[in-house]
């Protein structure tokens, strides 16, 4: 084997700065997309369970349209497809303010939101219908019943699958490199190109993703325990 390991490339020169920049961009992109995804997911997931058929149909359309096209295509769509449709002034403004970043936030958020909405819908459907009836019977409106009873219970029940979706979102943010968002994978490639040390660069990228994902999983499992509904589900092994 000819390969000469040289781990110092990671902290000499510009490498460390690039990786840090990439890490920050990945976190910003993922956080904004996550917020967008959760909002859309809750909205679409809840609407799919209401009695008014047109709202249900709109939610079904959103979910089936956005989850059934590859994320990569959505990245191209929001970056190359949408801006030309906007007024000239908006286009100019966008391309001076990181259009690729915002396109990636929307692509990732809207795509993941469609997936999350199915998780949220499953959570809502697992709550006995009589809970909803009890809420209405005491004078709450349908909106209040969802906001105060149905969603707070559903969201507590679906933390594990939502953790899955959140981890996927973070990892999927790497697809944004295809529309030249300088996120972590982009910067890892940059380090690799400049230093010609592929294994070192990719190891650094891999470890950073791993630590990020383990961090998220830890936070989510804390949340799960913190907000667990007393006595509702026996949590074997949950401390």
């Amino acid at each position, binding site marked *: 084997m000819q390969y000469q390991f040289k781990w110092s490339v990671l902290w000499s020169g510009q490498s460390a700065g690039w990786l840090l920049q990439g890490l920050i961009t990945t976190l910003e992109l993922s956080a904004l997309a996550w917020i967008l995804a959760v909002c859309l997911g809750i909205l679409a997931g809840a609407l799919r369970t209401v009695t008014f058929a047109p709202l249900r149909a709109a939610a079904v359309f959103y979910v089936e349209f956005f989850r059934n096209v590859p994320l990569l295509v959505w990245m191209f769509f929001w970056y190359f497809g949408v801006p030309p449709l906007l007024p000239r002034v908006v286009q100019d403004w966008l391309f001076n303010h990181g259009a690729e970043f915002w396109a990636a936030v929307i692509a990732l958020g809207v795509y993941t939101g469609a997936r999350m909405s199915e998780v949220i819908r499953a959570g809502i459907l697992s709550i006995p219908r009589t809970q909803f009836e009890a809420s209405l019977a005491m004078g709450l409106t349908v909106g209040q019943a969802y906001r*105060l009873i149905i969603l707070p219970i559903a969201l507590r029940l679906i933390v594990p699958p939502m953790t899955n979706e959140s981890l996927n979102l973070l990892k999927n943010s790497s697809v944004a490199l295809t529309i030249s968002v300088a996120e972590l994978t982009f910067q890892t490639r940059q380090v690799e190109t400049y230093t010609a040390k592929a294994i070192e660069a990719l190891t650094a990228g891999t470890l950073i993703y791993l630590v990020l994902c383990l961090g998220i999983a830890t936070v989510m499992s804390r949340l799960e325990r913190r907000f667990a*509904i007393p006595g509702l589900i026996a949590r074997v092994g949950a401390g």
Partner: protein
Amino acid sequence: MNGQAIEFKRVNKWFGKLHVLRDIDLSIASGEVVVVCGPSGSGKSTLIRCVNVLERIQQGDIVVLGQSVTVPGLNLAKLRTRVGMVFQQFNLFAHMTVLQNIMLAPMRVKRVSRDEAERTARALLERVGIPHRADSYPANLSGGQQQRVAIARALAMQPDVMLFDEPTSALDPEMINEVLEVMTDLARDGMTMMCVTHEMGFARRVAHRVIFMDEGQVIEQSEPEAFFAAPKSDRTKQFLSKILSH
């Protein structure tokens, strides 16, 4: 309040092809305690659920506290604040404490202040005999305690009518009485009550009138004394012989 609290006027309802309520004509006076009984599938739960419009009727009308439930654009939430309901499965909200369960509707619907809502809630817990469980979560209460909290929660809205849909059917035998006692007290205080129940002892002691339903129809109704001593229809006799024999 005087006069009729609930009036059913030639009410008909279908679930698909199944005719579940047939030409129901019935009035319940203010302050009256009515027990509705009948075999499984007779439509008694559906009947009571139509009063606060958890089910919609297809023909006829129901007038609840002077308000017709078939008026288009009816403010359902407002009607329901005046009609309390207690369910077979308690339906307490598992993510809230007992106190929060009782305070929710007064604060969110009636816009009562937190302090006042809490004072009312604690007084009601006293009344149903479990003031010490205010900060417990529903899952940590016995069935009987949960149902008493559910009654307190319904009373917190100061309803004019209370509906009970088989309130003791999901309870272990030793817990049935504690719930019936609360209901008896409520009746003695003059609450208008419509109870779907198989507790014939309760019907005998507390009800002003017992209604027997079968196959979506009111077959017979009379004062408890007469109802149990001398039922008129054969179907009533048959039903009573089945549930009173042991």
